[in-house]
């Protein structure tokens, strides 16, 4: 149970909550669920499946490059594999696991809410994400995978040079995926603004939530630009429009501008949740509050904001005017300031605390090391001549793998260990956890660090092989061996967590003595999260024992229990004053139906069956009508 119940009155209240919030059992329950925790778990396993696929693609690339002139993959297959690797890792793994899985599961718990603001919309965003991922992979399965790289430059991606359906799978799949993420980000913002437990004013909100707030706003404004660029691309490809066609007044560089106006904020969208996870794990294991809390909160928001003004540093080699490139170089350097603030805050918190290097904190230390390396090579790219020299070489590959794998995925892996006891009720094996960390850390370093050197030696990225006499063979062998070590580390994590699921020691509510509210409730949490809406007077709510005692008294007295229905309180945006009680919708068949209707529409758009696509769209509209036929208060 959520709270240790002492009196029969309290017991009766908890029983009533159990009945009201009871979930539908079995497969049907999972298909129709609107519980943010179940949706988070669905996101987790789906994105991990895509991580597996993206990982296999990575190993194929490294095996092809193990020696010169190898023929593991044909050049065409190699193009498809590295494109799918990038698309999978960015759109189908990192974003859905960080935002969909960690955000969904933890955010309502950290702010003391009983669900997300729009639970059915939440289910819809999961089903659309899953459908869009399957959609893109169908392309690979039928031998028509996208093969123009994850940033898909025209004219290579135009109908002339990529005549098969690969690019259409990419474009339509990512529009579909983007709708899912847009819906999710709006849901997160409203949840953070409105559903914080009364008393949790903005200055008492955990830094994890600030990171997710920043990410959500970045997604909300970045994704439409990607959608526009993809719609233009499909119009060009399918209906013969000329947005990117220089011969008829279009411009291929337009694609690059639109793509990177989305693509650079995207980089921060990928890494900000990792910052949020780091700010959750560090205080727990060093037993002190974060240094410079308000500065870190502001820095998280600033990174997302400034990220919108730097896109053309991806285009220094395209012949933009000097005035333009100099502006973007300067703007890119400015990002160092909020990033540096956070970096120093993490390091100072660890140094001035009493760190206990359990597995989750080890992953965060690894993250800090890789973020420094990737950040420093990033600053180098703000120097225009340096960028022009090294663009499209392995130096770039080294840089963004340190940032995206080292800095964004390491906290995700640390978070998997940190919150494993909360989600499963059991502890993972600490010894195996440490071994898997060191294996992965070593593997990452050995795989990606030599790429800096290869880049400086001039090895171009995206080439399916290299000649014997270039002097690149040794480093490539080293990198490939590193990638196998890295993969072994990841497999060991999976083994550890899978075994601990059955054999792990019982975790209890709060095995880490952690500061945030998810640890106030049982492990795993009940469907209603908290038997009583928690009292909050600081961002480290669990370190305020008087508040937790107040919760127990409130439950006995029936205050803030909301046991009359499927309800959660809403509060004012800044001060979190108690505002009103809202009914939350319970399970619904409509989100998954709508996702299916839209899948049908995108499939028909792919095949250029416009009328059938319209029929599916009309079906989607009917589903929406059914969705609204029952309002939450009528349930």
């Amino acid at each position, binding site marked *: 149970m959520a709270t240790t119940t002492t009196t029969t009155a309290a017991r009766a209240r908890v029983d009533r909550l159990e009945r009201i919030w009871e979930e539908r059992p079995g497969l049907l329950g999972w298909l129709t669920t609107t519980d943010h925790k179940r949706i988070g778990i669905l996101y987790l396993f789906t994105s991990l499946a895509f991580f597996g696929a993206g990982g296999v693609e990575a190993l194929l690339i490294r095996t092809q490059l193990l020696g010169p002139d190898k023929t593991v993959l044909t050049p065409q297959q190699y193009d498809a594999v590295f494109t799918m690797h990038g698309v999978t890792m960015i759109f189908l793994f990192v974003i859905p696991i960080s935002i969909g899985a960690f955000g969904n599961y933890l955010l309502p718990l950290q702010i003391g809410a009983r669900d997300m603001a729009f639970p059915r919309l939440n289910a819809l965003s999961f089903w659309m994400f899953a459908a869009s991922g399957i959609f893109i992979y169908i392309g690979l399965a039928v031998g028509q995978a996208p093969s123009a790289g994850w940033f898909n430059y025209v004219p290579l991606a135009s109908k002339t040079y990529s005549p098969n359906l690969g690019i259409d799978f990419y474009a339509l799949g990512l529009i579909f995926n983007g709708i899912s993420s847009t819906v999710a980000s*709006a849901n997160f913002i409203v949840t953070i603004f409105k559903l914080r437990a009364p008393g949790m004013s903005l200055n008492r909100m955990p830094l994890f939530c600030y990171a997710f707030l920043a990410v959500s706003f970045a997604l909300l404004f970045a994704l439409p630009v990607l959608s526009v660029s993809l719609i233009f691309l499909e119009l060009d490809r399918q209906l013969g429009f000329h947005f990117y066609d220089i011969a008829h007044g279009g411009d291929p560089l337009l694609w690059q501008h639109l793509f990177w106006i989305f693509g650079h904020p995207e980089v921060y969208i990928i890494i900000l949740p990792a910052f949020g996870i780091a700010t959750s794990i560090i205080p727990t294991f060093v037993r002190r509050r974060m240094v410079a809390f308000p500065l870190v909160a502001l820095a998280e928001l600033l990174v997302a904001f400034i990220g919108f003004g730097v896109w053309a540093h991806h285009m220094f080699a395209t012949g933009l005017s000097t005035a333009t490139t100099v502006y973007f170089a300067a703007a890119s350097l400015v990002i160092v300031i909020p990033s540096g603030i956070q970096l120093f805050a993490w390091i100072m918190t660890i140094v001035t605390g009493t760190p206990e290097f359990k597995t989750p904190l080890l992953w965060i230390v690894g993250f800090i090391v890789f973020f420094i390396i990737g950040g420093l090579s990033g600053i180098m790219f703000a120097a225009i001549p340096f960028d022009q020299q090294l663009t499209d070489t392995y130096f770039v590959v080294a840089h963004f793998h340190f940032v995206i794998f080292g800095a964004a995925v390491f906290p995700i892996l640390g978070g998997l260990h940190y919150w494993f006891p909360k989600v499963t009720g059991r502890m993972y094996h600490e010894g195996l956890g440490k071994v898997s960390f060191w294996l992965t850390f070593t593997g990452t370093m050995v795989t990606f660090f030599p790429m800096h050197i290869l880049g400086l030696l001039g090895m171009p990225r995206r080439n399916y092989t290299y000649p014997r006499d270039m002097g690149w063979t040794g480093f490539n062998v080293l990198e490939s061996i590193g990638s196998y070590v890295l993969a072994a580390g990841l497999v060991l994590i999976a083994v550890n967590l899978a075994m601990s699921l059955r054999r792990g020691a019982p975790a209890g509510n709060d095995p880490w003595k952690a500061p945030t509210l998810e640890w106030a409730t049982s492990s795993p949490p009940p469907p209603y999260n908290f038997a009583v809406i928690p009292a909050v007077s600081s961002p480290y709510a669990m370190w305020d024992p008087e508040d937790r005692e107040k919760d127990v008294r409130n439950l006995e007295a029936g205050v803030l229990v909301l046991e009359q229905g499927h309800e959660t309180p809403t509060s004012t945006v800044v001060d979190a004053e108690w505002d009103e009680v809202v009914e939350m919708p319970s399970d619904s068949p409509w989100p998954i139906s709508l996702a299916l209707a839209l899948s049908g529409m995108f499939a028909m758009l792919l095949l250029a069956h416009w009328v059938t696509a319209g029929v599916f769209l009309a079906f989607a509209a009917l589903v929406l009508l059914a969705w609204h036929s029952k309002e939450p208060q009528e349930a």
Partner: protein
Amino acid sequence: MSAVTRSTEASGGAEIRGVERNRLSQPNGWWGIVLLIATEATLLLAIVGTYYYLRFQATQWPPRGIAAPSVALPLVMMGVLLLTSVPMQLAAVATRAGRVGPTRALIVLAMLVQAGYLAVQIILLRNDLLDFSPAATAYGSIYFTMIVAHHAHVAIGLLLDVGILIRLIGGLTDYRAVGVRAIALYWHFVNLMAIIVVLTQLSPSL
């Protein structure tokens, strides 16, 4: 907290007025539509931005052989659409007062004008298509894409009108009252975008 108002249960004039009076901040549904508007506005502005990007790269805009757009009718139509913000806003005000009759009537009035606007625009679009093709020049591509994108937002607004009118048959609840306010906000956004899109569309002739 026995004094808590379960706002979504409010139905009928007096209860809704009470909920609206007691509410300290905007409800979830209002925030939802504001964020939808933010993301849709970004989408439309990216398309408008593309129009100017392509225009500033072109030596002649519109290209040789395509007449500059005629000004009078689109401007009049834009004015007519803008006027529909008035009944939509009045409908939102009426719901806050818990008055379902005027709410329905005002939405129907606005919807008729909006539907008429869309019908005339579709005819104008057909005429444009007879004059030049989106598949011949980048000018045609962006011209038609921008206009159709805006019309799609008008069409979605009409569907929202129909949807809320169906819900209002069963009377007014606070949930539906928030819905009417959200849809009114959406129309203000569509109308604001109409100014930007139409002026951009006509800019070669202005």
